[in-house]
């Protein structure tokens, strides 16, 4: 599955993005490491059109001078969705991108269909978790199975630049002082995924979001650390694919007989 790199110019500046696949749109908001095209994302692109904007300042792109907070990034994502996708879409946010997705759902809920949060950052967790500054230690906490992680093809300078952008967006602590009080406004059907071995985003974050977002679903992916889709790609795909396909009905096991009878049955 080839991802094509494109660019769109929005009011605050140019935004580079990757696009692939066909089908209903899925907006993918990347983690603090920048854009990474994993096997599960490639698999999702078999049934969806994936749009993956590069957050300004990440992966060697220039930052936008007027976009300097996570909330402002969510506004930018909404502008991007309007300009490029042009209709309501599902959103998948990974970690840092999950934080952005939360703000997007809070402020621009009408643009969202389903919301998937993979180990989302942004919710204070009483000092638990956090991203280590040491790259080796960070990598150890990101992946339970580093051998399954996408190859590190980005230059060190780019990775260091991505890290600096966390500070630029006020995101270095992974904690947003104003977001928690706003998430109860989210109306989108929401799936919160947490790895059982995640030491970066603690389980309290998932529990908090589950409690605050009415009708949301919290699911633990067994034997996954922070980057769930890398550690457990099949489990990630199974639950995310089912949720995107069926919404809240994903909790009902369709079984083989119903799968055969109902087109699109996935679980």
């Amino acid at each position, binding site marked *: 599955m080839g991802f094509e790199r494109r660019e769109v110019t929005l009011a605050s500046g140019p935004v580079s993005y990757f696009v692939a696949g066909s089908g209903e749109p899925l907006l993918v908001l990347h983690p603090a490491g920048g854009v990474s095209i994993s096997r599960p994302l490639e698999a999702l692109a078999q049934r969806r059109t994936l749009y993956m904007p590069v957050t300004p300042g990440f992966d060697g792109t220039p930052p936008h001078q007027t976009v300097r907070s996570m909330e402002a990034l969510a506004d930018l994502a909404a502008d991007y969705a309007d300009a490029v996708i042009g209709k309501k879409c599902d959103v998948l946010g990974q970690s840092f991108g999950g934080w952005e997705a939360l703000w997007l759902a809070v402020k621009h809920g009408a643009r969202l269909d389903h919301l998937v949060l993979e180990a989302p950052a942004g919710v204070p967790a009483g000092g638990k978790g956090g991203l280590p500054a040491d790259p080796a230690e960070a990598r150890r906490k990101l992946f339970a199975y580093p051998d399954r992680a996408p190859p590190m093809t980005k230059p060190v300078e780019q990775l260091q630049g991505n890290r600096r952008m966390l500070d630029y967006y006020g995101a270095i602590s992974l904690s947003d002082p104003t977001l928690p009080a706003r998430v109860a406004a989210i109306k989108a059907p929401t799936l919160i995924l947490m790895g059982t071995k995640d030491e970066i985003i603690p389980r309290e974050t998932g529990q908090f979001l589950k409690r605050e977002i009415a009708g949301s679903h919290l699911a633990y992916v067994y034997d996954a650390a922070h980057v769930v889709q890398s550690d457990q790609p099949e489990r990630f795909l199974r639950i995310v694919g089912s949720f995107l396909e069926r919404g809240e009905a994903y909790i*009902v096991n369709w079984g083989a*007989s119903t799968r055969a009878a109902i087109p699109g049955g996935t679980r």
Partner: protein
Amino acid sequence: MKFNFFHLMPWPDYPREPEEWPVSNKDFDAERGRQLYSDYIDCMAYAEQCGFDSIGCNEHHFSPYGLMSNCNLIGAALVHRTKTVRLAMLGNLVPLLNPVRVAEEYSMLDVMSGGRILAGMMRGIPHEYIAYNVPPSDSRERLREAVALIIKAWTEPEPFGWEGEFYQFPSVSIWPKPYQKPHPRLLMSASNDESAEFAAQHRAKMGIVLIADLKLARASIDLYHRVAHASGWEPTPEDILIGHHTCIADTDGEAREHMRKALDYFHHILMRPQRSAQQLVIQKTRYYQREETGERFQARLATLRARTMEEQIEAGSIYCGSPETVVEQIRRVHKVLGHGTEQFTMKVGNMPDQVVRRGMELFRDRVQPALRGL
């Protein structure tokens, strides 16, 4: 007429209307839970002293609706608290469970109790399938195969293997085997045509609860009789169990006052959260093979919820009043349904336990004697 004392073990003081199922357990008070189990088991055991013929246990998951996620555990507690009363396990939700385990646990209870169990083989209500992640569309066929396997496990004299569609066991030989020979009597739900046929085909006793329309219940009973006849056997009145929420108090006024509050809690707190989950299962799967059966299931619950207590009494859905009033209500329903087993759920919602116990004593002293010979 035989009488079964049925208990849901509800959580009686949930503070608000729960919005979603499963219901969050963050406020579960373990000490309150310990006390409830103690009180409820005492109350169920007391049913023997009050002249009930059997005590009913059941299985529900993930909400304050009932604290009995495994009815066999409560059955085991009752075995040594009772002497002669039958233990109606109503029952294990068989398609959700390992059928060999069900065969073993029912056998244990049957042997421990000296042959006092009635073996409920329940399919369960739709949303329970989400709890154990079992495909609802397979529920009927899973039940059919599981029941066949359980009976085989109870009756085969030598170790055997089972190679089925849903279950495969290379070698089975349970210890203990049941006390009753060839095995405990089965009971199945018959609240709709599908299940009434199924129960009759399996020579099981049939049970109907939460009746909204006596004529529909009568139709299910008639169908059960017809299918049983076609299957080569004739049910007795005792094979037909009809369940009612029941409040017996010293006066009609007192009973109605208690029942009104209890029904409000039952329908608006305990029954509320599972509605959306049930709808998902009914709409998105083939839990009910016939579409109209699913619609009827939801319509029945909606009808009961919308009715006033007086309308529910009039419709024969509940019993409520002084002993003499309840006797008349039972006679009226019996005239339509002709059933031989009546099941009382006296702990309705948050009905106070002392009201339940007083009702049980009034049953013993003034209801059961008046219905001898019915």
